[in-house]
Each structure stands twice: as C-alpha cells, then as structure tokens.
C-alpha cells in the first residue's frame, strides 16, 4: 500500500525524454503503469498538450521536486505541485551532488519532516542508507524510494545487498527502487527481492522502441512480483538432482 492506495501494476513510469508525445502516450498504455511522474517548470506554450496527455492516461500523478538542491526549494515546489495537481503525493528530491545526482540526506530529512507535518504523503528519493531511512520514517514517511544507481545511468541495482537489508529491516514500509534501472531483468530482480514497486524513466524513453520496452518492463515487474509471492527457492552450493534417482536402470 502506498499511503492507503493499492496498485495493481507495480511499475511507476517517468514522462520525460520520449521522442514524441504520441510515443509517450503509447508507452504509458503499454507499460500498464498506474502512476506516472511529472515535474513543474516555467510556463510556456507547450504545457496545454502535456496536460491533456496526463488527463487521458487515467494514471495517478506523482509530481516530483527534481532539480531542487535545498529543502526550501523542494518544499516550495511541493506546495505548488499540490495545488496544481490536487494530490498530497510528492516525490521528494533534494539533490546533493550535481554529477551523481545523489540525494542530500540532510536536506531530504528536513524537507520530509516539514512536508509530512503539512499533510503531504512523501515519496523520498534517497540512498540505500539504513540510518537515513530510519530518519525519514521518523519524519513521517511511509514510502521510501532508494536509488538502484545514479539517475539515468542504467547500472541496475548497484548495491543489491544493502537494498535487501533495507527490505528486511522495514517489512511494513512500502519500498520502491527509484532510478538507475536500465533493463527489465534489473526491475524483475528488485521485485523478486520483495520491493513493492520500481520507478524508471530513461530505460523506456531512450530505448530504440520505447513502447515495446515499456511493455517489457511491465511484464518483468509483474513476473518479479509473482515470483516473490511464490517463494523463491534458497540457493545451494552443490548440485541436487531434480530427476529421481530411485528406479534408475543398471545399464553399466
């Protein structure tokens, strides 16, 4: 559950960098995503068409605070987004480093505390750091979005053991891998690990065929989630024959 909202599809899709508005529209539909992320930027003539795409998608909107480098900027952006989209949901980004786009955990916790107290339902983009995660939960967050790898890098789950530890440590918090996923197999892995959702953008938007890739991600996320629910076998060091040994003929 994401602040009381259940989702059938566990793929959340970004709306940037698509080759055309039509491809964006088709990719959202093919992915099966029920949540799409958007940003706020200075008004211009192209805004109306994008608003129509959002409305036609039927998706729940998760506005972001992308590009904000201080808690103050992010808080102001969150308020503007809440009024514009009529949703308490906010994907909270407070960037600490311009090269890695790594979250600034200090500004992030400050902004999360202020926004949660103000009635926002915060989806914080964070690192896999356990202590930061605890601080975000103390601040009122009920969803955490650790990065898989730097935004747009396509490196996948760069620190899978730490992401697994986060899952084990917070069994009742909705966890979403946000950023860095480049291939459907990486999204499936996050879901197999018990993550509640994945959020990605570039891997779909920059694919040769974004609509086909959106569909592939939707299928991978569904497969990974089903696999986690089915209970994965534990790995073994040695082989174990799957075909019965009993009844084997003596042909030597």
């Amino acid at each position, binding site marked *: 559950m994401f602040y009381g909202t259940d989702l059938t599809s566990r793929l959340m899709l970004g709306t940037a*960098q*698509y080759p055309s508005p039509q491809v964006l529209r088709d990719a959202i539909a093919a992915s099966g995503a029920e949540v799409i992320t*958007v940003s706020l930027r*200075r008004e*211009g003539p192209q*805004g109306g068409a994008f608003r129509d795409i959002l409305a036609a998608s039927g998706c729940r909107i998760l506005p972001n605070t992308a590009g904000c480098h201080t808690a103050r900027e992010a808080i102001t*952006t969150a308020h503007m987004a809440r009024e*514009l989209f009529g949703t308490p949901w906010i994907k909270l980004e407070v960037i600490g480093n311009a090269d890695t786009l790594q979250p600034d955990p200090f500004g992030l916790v400050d902004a999360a505390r202020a926004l949660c107290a103000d009635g926002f339902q915060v989806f914080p983009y964070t690192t896999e750091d356990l202590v930061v995660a605890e601080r975000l939960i103390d601040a009122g967050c009920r969803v955490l979005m650790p990065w898989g790898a730097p*935004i747009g890098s396509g490196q996948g789950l760069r620190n899978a053991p730490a992401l697994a530890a986060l899952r084990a440590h917070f069994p009742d918090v909705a966890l979403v891998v946000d950023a860095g996923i480049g291939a459907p197999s990486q999204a499936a892995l996050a879901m197999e690990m018990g993550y509640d959702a994945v959020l990605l953008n570039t891997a779909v938007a920059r694919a040769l065929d974004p609509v086909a890739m959106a569909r592939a991600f939707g299928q991978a996320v569904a497969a990974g989630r089903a696999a986690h629910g089915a209970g994965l076998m534990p790995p073994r060091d040695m082989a174990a024959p799957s075909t019965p040994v009993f009844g084997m003929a003596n042909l030597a």
Partner: protein
Amino acid sequence: MRIDLNGAPVDTAATTLAALIDERGCDAASVASALNGAFVPRSLRAATPLSDGARVELLMPMQGG
C-alpha cells in the same frame, strides 16, 4: 514597475500577483505561483502586492522522471 518573471525582466502595470497573471494571459487555474521563493496559493494572489524587483515564478506541469 520592473519585475523578474520566470527569470526574465518584465515591465508591468499590475500591482498584484493576480493582476500580473491576468495581464500575461495565463490561465489562472493552470499555473502555480511563487513570489520571492515562497509559494503563493491561488486564493491569496489577489491580495498579494507586487513591488519593484519582485521575483515571480509561474510554473506548470512538465515532463519529469
């Protein structure tokens, strides 16, 4: 008076934020506003005066990840 609107200098006769949005031909319901870095809710725009050098941001939905 001269203000800064979305990063560009603008001469305006508007004395309130609501009047500025109207003067620019923006649909008041489809933009969110900030004055000098602070959010101004739609309901307070008419009561929010502008002064020379004010920094106004008018934002709308855009593609994002």
